[in-house]
């Protein structure tokens, strides 16, 4: 009985993929080459098998991977529908992401010194910021891409995972850090604010907001010095107002949020095009291939959700939001069940990362909150985003397993 239950969502996902992709191929209306068919069949098989294998090798949570592969499938279908070439590329990225997921899972599981590497994470993060400024390339108004040869990636995607490791290793050993230095929590806050300031200088407001939310949430749960939490809130209000007054790009985003129709030709262009798409889709969508996602700017990455709403309707949109909600819920559940504090905070950090990132971009494209550019985890096109998301997912998978607490480990060591 239990086996049947844990199997059925996997089969449902399989069914969804087959139906979605068949519809897509019919809609394209011409013979598809064998390579594409092969890759598509391969991916469906990989996802199905991965979900199957995972139940065999991991005693942890099997739903988080299932949810993310569902999200990834929706993303592939949509991206392939808009641009076949990119769709195939996304297929490759997802496949690599799944490999990376298993790789991360084994590495993080086998090596048990992660909480002692605080300085390495810190140095790594600053190093990545440094190369962003040296090799940085401007895309969509933000300097957050690094090109080295033919290879380009977004360092901030790696830094956000490092940030979670920094926070976890600090708060799981906070007594020791406090002994070492009474003001260590203030230093930590200074470090996080330096990250946020650097992101702000890169004009990557979305990631800056994301870093703040991750930090604020972890701090809220684990900081014993409650005064700091109020300082943190007060500071962000002050910086927010200063940012608005001093920087034009902040002001523009805010104005485009308040009344995009007034600036429809320029600042409000992106968001209004997104709203047109969502409005046209209605509740059930125009149907796959029948809408005009090509009218939406940056549709593959930031605005993928608008394209999904146009063609699949806000019912699918609401479904995606609910999947993220369930994902966050599972993540928090994993954290609460985890006895080892380092892995507990790690699980929280990763759940908050996905929750906050999806909320910021979803809220942005539907104009509930000001729009800041971020990818929608697992759905948007992009190598850096997909790979870092699957890496984080691999870590979360480890966290979902039973790990002995530090005290228990110490006892075992004795």
């Amino acid at each position: 009985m239990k086996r049947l239950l844990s199997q059925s969502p996997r089969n449902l996902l399989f069914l969804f993929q087959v139906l979605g992709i068949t519809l897509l191929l019919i809609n394209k209306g011409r013979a598809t080459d064998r390579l594409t068919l092969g890759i598509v069949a391969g991916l469906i098989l990989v996802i199905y098998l991965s979900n199957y294998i995972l139940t065999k090798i991991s005693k942890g949570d099997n739903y988080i991977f299932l949810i993310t592969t569902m999200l990834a499938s929706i993303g592939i279908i949509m991206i392939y529908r808009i641009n076949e070439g990119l769709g195939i590329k996304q297929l490759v990225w997802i496949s690599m992401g799944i490999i990376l997921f298993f790789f991360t899972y084994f590495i993080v599981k086998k090596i048990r010194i992660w909480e002692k590497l605080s300085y390495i994470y810190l140095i790594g993060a600053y190093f990545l910021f440094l190369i962003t400024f040296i090799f940085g390339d401007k895309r969509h108004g933000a300097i957050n891409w690094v090109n080295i040869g033919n290879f380009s990636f977004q360092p901030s995607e790696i830094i956000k995972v490092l940030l979670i490791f920094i926070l976890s290793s600090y708060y799981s050993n906070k007594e020791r850090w406090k002994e070492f230095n009474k003001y260590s929590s203030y230093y930590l806050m200074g470090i996080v604010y330096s990250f946020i300031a650097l992101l702000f200088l890169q004009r990557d407001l979305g990631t800056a907001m994301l870093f703040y939310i991750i930090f604020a949430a972890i701090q809220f749960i684990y900081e014993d010095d409650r005064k700091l939490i109020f300082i943190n809130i007060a500071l962000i209000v002050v910086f927010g107002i200063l940012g608005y007054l001093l920087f034009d790009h902040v002001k523009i985003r805010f104005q485009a949020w308040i009344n995009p129709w007034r600036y429809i030709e320029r600042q409000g262009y992106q968001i209004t095009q997104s709203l047109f798409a969502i409005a046209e889709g209605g509740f059930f969508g125009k149907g796959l291939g029948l809408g005009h996602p090509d009218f939406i700017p940056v549709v593959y990455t930031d605005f993928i959700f608008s394209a999904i709403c146009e063609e699949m309707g806000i019912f699918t949109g609401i479904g995606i939001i609910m999947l993220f909600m369930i994902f966050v819920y599972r993540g928090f559940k994993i954290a609460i069940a985890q006895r080892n504090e380092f892995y507990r905070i790690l699980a929280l950090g990763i759940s908050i990362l996905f929750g906050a990132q999806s909320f910021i971009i979803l809220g942005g494209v539907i104009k509930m909150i000001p729009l800041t550019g971020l990818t929608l985890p697992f759905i948007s096109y992009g190598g850096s985003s997909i790979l870092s998301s699957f890496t984080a997912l691999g870590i979360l998978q480890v966290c979902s397993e039973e790990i002995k607490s530090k005290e228990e480990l110490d006892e075992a060591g004795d």
Partner: protein
Amino acid sequence: MKQEIKRIIIVLAGFCLAFISLIVYLSYFQVFKASTVKNNSYNKRLWINEASILRGSFLDRNGKILVYSENKDGTYIRNYLYGRLYSHIIGYSYREYGKTGLELQYNNALLNISENATLNELKNLVLPSTVGNNIKLTISHDLQSKARELLKGKKGSIVAMNPISGEVYAMVSMPDFDVNTLKEDWKAITENPDSPLINRATQGLYVPGSVFKVITATAFLEKENLDMNYECTGTANVGGYEFSDYNKKAHGEIDLEGALVNSCNTYFTTKSVEVGKDLILNIAERFLLNNEIPFDLPVKSSQFPYKGFIDKTELAAASIGQGKVLVTPLNMALVASGIANGGQIVKPILVKEIISNDGKVIRSNKTEILSTVTDPVKANLIKEMMVEVVNSGTGTKARIKNIKVAGKTGTAETSSGKSHAWFIGFAPADSPKVAVAVVLEEESATGGSSAAPIAREIMLYAINNIKE
């Protein structure tokens, strides 16, 4: 430990709340905002079909072509045969300036695309549509031209309609603009302080002045045991403010009819305090003030903004259509229609039929009762009083030989110091064929001398020429 779990759950609750708010906002957007957002002319989807479908024509009630599209060297050209005459009703459809008027409201019908996307696709698979539907208006082109001629050089609006069926025969708003030369005139149009783009008939909010007394008089009749007699001395003090009649003329011993015929301010201001705000508000709302009027074009709601407490002076001012009372000309045409139609206001109709390319009627607008303002007996009493207004009162310039005309004049004082001239009425009084509202904006003349003769021309022409 326990505290840690508690805090984790607080953060989790925060996230759940955030996600649920996304769902709520998205649903709210889809239900309440989407239809307006979709029709924004910057939405490129609106123009895709334009290239492949011949946009339908507009016809008047007799089938006269007003607007049509034709294929010129592979692209469709829209021809507006009467550039100015229908600038507010039909509006325009240009890529650069978007769509307005019926061109906007009936866009899907004109292109023969269904509101339902799936249905559309299926239909296109079976038989691809390349020709849109035609729209037949209730407008009489001749009366529309005549109304515009009468209003030429003035600011204001005329609405003429059938009070029984709700069909609008003419709807003119001045100043207007030429939709054929938008490109050349755009700057001048948008910078003109008189705002030619606004359809004054549906969007213009005017102080009604004495034409509002028709509504107040209805409220007086609804009040039980009201002493209708009054001794007019030319002035009256209500709540410390002195109201006076036109030229402070004392009308002497009068009743409600005498008060309406002579447009006696002191009568209405004094009696309104006895009747009370609630009843007047109630009747005003039955005459569709404070209400949205369903129409083929967007209509601004007329205002009788006295839901809360008001003092005697404010009520007295409102009873003679001054103060904060504001009405649209269309609403006042409906007021006249309501009295003409035995106390029932019908929905105004501008689009008579949507006709497919092969001549089939796809959709037609049917007469619908919007509101019952009073019973037929009281409506008849008001009507007789309005007939007297035209026979022997302030509205004698609307008199037509051998036809009984009912009407009411108004001269509304405005903050600019220049008054609006009003006339509302209908004819023939005993079997009404046409109801009319005329407003001349900042005309600085009385309604009886300037608006009544225009209304007369409209009514006379409509009775003689329009076939139902």
